[in-house]
């Protein structure tokens, strides 16, 4: 049995009545109390993504990366996300990039420090927004060989497309990082492995 639910029922079913944050567009199908399927339709109370929400996610992204919070950092990306890494010739699935970043940037002997420029936000509807901004990045990465490198990205630029997932969380669906100037990299002397154990 299919029928439209009254607005208050739809919100209650979604558990968003208290926050009012999530989009009703995600309520395409929900189970009614009697087990029958109820179809909801988008309505005017759908909340658009705000620029502040997006800026907060961008700051979280860099915070997770610099604090090496692996799982939180990985959760910033949707499973279908695609990425142009700053030094890559081709686009790759985010899950591959995450494996590499985890190995090179999130290990005990690696570090990431970023300074962000002004963040432009372009909302593209209720569930989508683009963030773009310049950044300065200092990273120490450990390659698979064990060698460590210090890189400076003085004029980094990034585009991150955020999309709300089914739980209403903003996550990255596409990312493009690049540098307007050549990245300077130097090899660092080996460190005592016990020091970082």
């Amino acid at each position, binding site marked *: 049995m299919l029928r439209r639910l009254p607005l208050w029922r739809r919100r209650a079913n979604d558990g968003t009545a208290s926050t009012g944050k999530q989009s009703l567009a995600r309520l395409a199908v929900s189970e009614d109390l009697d087990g029958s399927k109820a179809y909801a339709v988008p309505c005017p109370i759908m909340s658009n993504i705000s620029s502040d929400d997006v800026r907060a996610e961008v700051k979280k992204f860099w915070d997770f990366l610099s604090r090496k919070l692996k799982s939180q950092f990985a959760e910033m990306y949707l499973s279908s996300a*695609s990425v*142009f890494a700053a030094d890559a010739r081709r686009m790759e699935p985010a899950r591959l990039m995450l494996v590499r970043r985890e190995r090179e940037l999130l290990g005990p002997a690696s570090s990431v420090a970023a300074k962000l420029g002004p963040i*432009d936000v372009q909302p*593209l509807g209720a569930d989508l927004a683009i963030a773009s901004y310049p950044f300065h990045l200092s990273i120490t990465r450990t390659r698979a060989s064990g060698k460590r490198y210090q890189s400076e990205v003085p004029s980094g*630029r990034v585009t991150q497309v955020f999309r709300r997932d089914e739980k209403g969380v903003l996550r990255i*669906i*596409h990312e493009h990082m690049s540098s307007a*100037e*050549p990245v300077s990299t130097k090899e660092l002397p080996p460190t005592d492995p016990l020091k970082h154990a």
Partner: protein
Amino acid sequence: MLSFSQNMKKISSEDVHKEVHRFWAILSGNLTDKLEEMYSPTAIVFTGKAKRSESGKLMAVRRSRQIPGPAHSSRAEVGSIDVQIVGPDVAIAAYTYSFNTQKILANGSKVQINTLLGRATQIFQRGEDGALRIVHEHLSAAAPPAMEKAGE
């Protein structure tokens, strides 16, 4: 911000492929359509070497002046275009490209610029008039473009 009307045609991968090829045909001087009309009035772009983003319309006007005439047409090769449809009216095109063009320097000399490892992200949105326009663009290169003196 534009909203999607039920009467609008949903964006398709073919639509996006067509627009990407139109973009490069204009830049190469093979199509006389106006480049600035490909951009939304609110578009933001990162061009190849710019440290900051800028207005897409302004950049397009500047880039249009550099589009070569028929005698010096540029050459673009676009790799496989990955299209993600992320809404009824929004799609992300991401691809690699190479671009070979001629530029006249301030001293009047001509140089050939070869971008071999170009990477592009272009986000298209269907406008209220039904046309797809770029709302965001990020062009970069995995290696600096090669420059050489061009012959007459």
